[in-house]
């Protein structure tokens, strides 16, 4: 995004602002995120739909709607400013603008073995659990989320609803036929748990690498493209290693005290395996624009083709297993959060 065009655009919307610097957020794979700092110390974040559309197969405007609705609640998010369907600085690709929140998506040194490390990791884990509890106990109906997010009828229906929703998405966006995945969807249906803990607003990917952290506190939840209404276990399965910071049972007990929910172990296990399919679906969806020549970003190939194939192999093993626990134990050993790689996070 050219700074001059962006400055002219922002002045047209915000008045006399002067850009001091523009930095593209790293890695910003799913959607382009630009951090714009003004010379007076304020700033905005410009989030734009990338060429060929985002990797995650949900509409760009949906994420804006989530921000706009969340901003009227107590959930910490950056203040949404406006949505533009046909802006100049991104060459007509839709964008939305939110207020810049000071902080970082990474927590430098969190995994270092230094004095006080255990206490720090515990504090971070508890902070994350507290904020997730706040989100999951939000009255999403009263907040208006039911008007634009399709919700399951009951906690018992939540996982079937998720399965059907993402099966439809998969068959609409997959890059080619994946018979293993078709068979895996049957496996997920055959292993659906009987009930759920609650129906909550869920964020999708969350934790380190996703939110804005400052002084080890979450000051803004970010990136809502995978928001849904469903079983809160789903969010815990996408919590990017937060359960490895401390004894997992202790974190979950703390969360349960805060929410009043009882997370069902079977559901928890189910979502850990389900996440393999959902990740495969989301990543492979981004490959369409690569194949069409609309977006040749290399990570679209390593993720949309390479990681998708790795996940296909995992599912190929899973469909031969009769036990959810066995399947979860198997996939967990292969899942690695790239944000925990210091070459990527710099932390």
């Amino acid at each position, binding site marked *: 995004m050219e700074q001059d065009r962006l400055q002219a655009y922002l002045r047209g919307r915000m008045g006399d602002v002067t850009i001091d610097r523009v930095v593209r957020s790293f890695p910003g794979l799913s959607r382009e995120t630009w951090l714009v700092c003004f010379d007076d110390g304020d700033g905005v974040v410009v989030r734009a739909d990338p060429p060929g559309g985002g990797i995650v197969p949900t509409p760009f405007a949906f994420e804006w709607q989530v921000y706009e609705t969340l901003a009227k609640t107590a959930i910490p998010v950056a203040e949404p400013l406006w949505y533009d369907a046909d802006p100049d600085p991104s060459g007509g690709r839709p964008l939305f603008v939110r207020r810049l929140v000071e902080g970082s998506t990474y927590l430098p040194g969190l995994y270092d073995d230094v004095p006080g490390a255990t206490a720090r990791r515990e504090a971070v884990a508890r902070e994350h659990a507290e904020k997730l509890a706040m989100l999951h106990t939000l009255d999403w109906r009263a907040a208006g989320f039911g008007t634009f997010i399709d919700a399951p009828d009951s906690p018992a229906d939540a996982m079937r609803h998720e399965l059907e929703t993402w099966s439809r998405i998969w068959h609409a966006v997959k890059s080619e036929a994946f018979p293993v995945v078709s068979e895996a969807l049957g*496996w997920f249906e*055959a292993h659906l748990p009987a009930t759920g803990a609650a129906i909550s607003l869920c964020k999708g990917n969350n934790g380190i690498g996703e939110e804005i952290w400052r002084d080890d506190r979450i000051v803004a939840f970010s990136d809502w493209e995978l928001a849904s209404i469903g079983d809160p276990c789903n969010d815990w399965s996408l919590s990017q290693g937060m359960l490895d910071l401390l004894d997992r049972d202790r974190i979950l007990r703390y969360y349960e005290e805060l929410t009043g929910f009882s997370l069902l172990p079977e559901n928890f296990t189910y979502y850990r395996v389900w996440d393999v399919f959902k990740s495969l679906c989301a990543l492979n969806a981004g490959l369409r624009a690569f194949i069409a020549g609309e977006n040749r970003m290399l990570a679209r190939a*390593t993720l949309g083709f390479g990681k998708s194939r*790795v996940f296909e*192999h995992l599912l190929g093993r899973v469909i031969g297993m009769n036990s959810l626990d066995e399947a979860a134990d198997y996939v967990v050993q292969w899942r690695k959060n*790239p944000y925990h790689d210091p070459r990527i996070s*710099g932390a």
Partner: protein
Amino acid sequence: MRPSSRELIESIIAAIDTTILPAIAEQQAASSLRAARTLLEHLAVRVEIEPDVLTADNRDAAAVLAGLGDAPDAGEGGGVLALRARNAALQTAIDQRLRAMPIAGRESPGQAEERRVLRAYLERRLARERDMIFPAFLGTPF
């Protein structure tokens, strides 16, 4: 012809690791190079084995489908592009059969047997292409 495609690609990977990547400080550029390196690691294997993998898989998939009453075009030869196109068509046919079946445990005995045959084929397919996927794509994706 020497060096082989694999040897050339592996030499590019070595240059990236030892000379180029350590010299790149800019985050997005280094990330692109890591992704490029991962893709090269995949290609080093793929250029050597893909035609054989596709040929074997097309034969296997066609035989499986024929055994289930279909009459697929197994075809032979025609270069890697033709092999890939044939493979895509065969995968679509296998996929359609699986999607038409009830979930495991609710099939008729005939459908259960068909599922057993198709799953056994899928296992063979995954084993065939495994070396093109692992370990290349266990590395850093970006």
